[in-house]
């Protein structure tokens, strides 16, 4: 069996496949349908200091091979997460990555500080890139200075792994990856959703209540791959690839272009066990190709010549 483990800073995860934030709840909602111990870990729904109601309906709409969402970070808040969700999560043999969203540097600090007080959080993923809330998120993520400031500040407050989730809605994502690496980030997640919109032509109204939303699903996979490729060539810290992964082959593409690990997102809505299937599939691929460690696949792209696509095309 190939070695599947994945290390960030001082924490080792059993494999390189995670459930993406906002697509797996707090980990406990899917237990009927999936053995989550087969995942490297679960990234929680974004946690804010206070509970958030989220945006008015309509929050989601399906688009060609994808979906737009404008949830608005609806979540139970850090306190209830600690008291009501974490105790169960800790008992499950899988990694727990707490995703944090906030509208000020101070709020990011307060949420992180609260989580620092408790056992069982293996790492943090910092959401500086939610496109759907006015007062925060993307306003940080689109500014390299602000992203750097948040990273530096949080770095000073924790010894746990710090992962920064970057937005693709910038000109050069590699500059952001380099900036956060420079101030102590342990990894970057690439990418959050792309800003998109959909219109009802009969009423000429936007379908989402916030007009624009975040595009995810297989439609964004080629873009996500290019962003991971770009970011992974710019930094030495791990890049966690996210964007439209529906199956093992999609995940392998991300590893090959430079992702050290992957997160499965939208696919969880269709099949919550898909992450576990992908984790097993990656291990099987390595065994079949005599690869002794999944790590050997990371960034193994043979850019020297083109692949023949005629069979898969027909």
């Amino acid at each position, binding site marked *: 069996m190939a070695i599947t483990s994945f290390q960030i800073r001082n924490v080792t995860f059993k494999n390189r496949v995670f459930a993406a934030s*906002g*697509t*797996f*709840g707090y980990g406990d*909602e*899917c237990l*009927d*349908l999936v053995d989550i111990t087969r995942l490297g870990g679960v990234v929680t*729904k974004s946690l804010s200091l206070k509970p958030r*109601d*989220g*945006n*008015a*309906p*309509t*929050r*989601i*709409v*399906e688009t*060609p*091979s*994808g*979906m737009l*969402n404008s*949830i608005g970070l*609806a979540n139970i808040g850090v306190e209830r997460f600690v008291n009501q969700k974490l105790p169960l999560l800790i008992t499950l043999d899988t990694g727990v990555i707490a995703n944090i969203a906030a509208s000020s540097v101070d709020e990011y600090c307060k949420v992180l500080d609260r989580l620092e007080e408790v056992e069982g959080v293996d790492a943090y993923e910092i959401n500086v890139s939610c496109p759907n809330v006015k007062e925060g998120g993307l306003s940080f993520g689109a500014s390299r200075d602000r992203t750097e400031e948040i990273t530096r500040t949080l770095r000073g407050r924790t010894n746990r792994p710090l992962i920064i989730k970057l937005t693709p809605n910038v000109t050069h994502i590699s500059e952001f990856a380099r900036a956060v690496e420079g101030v102590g980030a342990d990894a970057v997640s690439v990418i959050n959703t792309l800003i998109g919109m959909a219109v009802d032509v009969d009423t000429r109204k936007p379908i989402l209540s916030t007009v624009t939303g975040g595009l995810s*699903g*297989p*439609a964004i996979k080629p873009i996500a791959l290019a962003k991971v490729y770009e970011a992974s060539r710019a930094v030495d810290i791990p890049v966690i690839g996210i964007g439209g992964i*529906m199956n093992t082959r999609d995940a392998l593409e991300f590893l090959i272009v430079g992702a050290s690990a992957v997160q499965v997102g*939208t696919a*969880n*809505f*269709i*099949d*919550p*066990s898909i992450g576990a299937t992908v984790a097993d599939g990656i291990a099987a691929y390595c065994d079949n190709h005599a690869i002794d460690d999944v790590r050997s696949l990371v960034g193994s792209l043979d850019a020297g010549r083109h692949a023949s696509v005629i069979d898969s095309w027909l």
Partner: protein
Amino acid sequence: MMIQELCPVRNVVQVAQGVFVLTCISPRIAASILPGQFVNIRIGTGTEPLLRRPFSVYRTNGCDIEIVFQVVGQGTDMLRHLGEADRVDVLGPLGTPYRYESPDFETAVLVAGGLGIAPLPILTSFLKRAGKPVVSFIGARESALLVDLHLEQVSVATDDGTRGFHGTVVDLARSHLRSGHFAHPKIFSCGPTRMLASTARLAKEFGIPCEVSLEGPMGCGFGICQGCPVELLAGERKYALMCKEGPVFDASTILM
């Protein structure tokens, strides 16, 4: 307990103009589903459509579950063409059922508009088992669209008067409620949101309890995507999730 089953299709049968019933073999879901709960069906294996589509369970019969659907788009058109050799990926039972055993009524008054008849047959069979008398009011735009199978004491309304009462199903139900024949009635309703809002007003008019089953877009169907908020009229939270806390709600608690 949520179950994901790959279910062999028995058949797809047309029951009205553009309206079909899909029957598939789903023993574990058939054994545990309650009236008003729904299943989320993956249509095809590709990325078009991408998300599952929610359908109320119409009836159960031994190991079989039935759903009723109207062909309105790509997904339902694909469903119509399923046959005996096919399997469908079904996730369920999902959502909160009708409170068909609650002590706040004696007579169940079922009010449905259009495809809102979807959960009524299974609801009727559970109500009968609970010993509650059932009367049903169903409405449609025209006679050809009416589906009145597996119901009790049916009265019909059509918008164009091609069958039964000429007018809305809510007006039809109102005239019967006025006659005062029903002992401690409670309305169980399903249909388009505007019709449900009108049903809720009817219930308020008569001071009787009313449960409505909502329909709307959902991402996952089991609470993780937070994509289907329903605005609450009171309480600490602004929204409930249609997929989890609904689709059935006490009509007096939500904004429609």
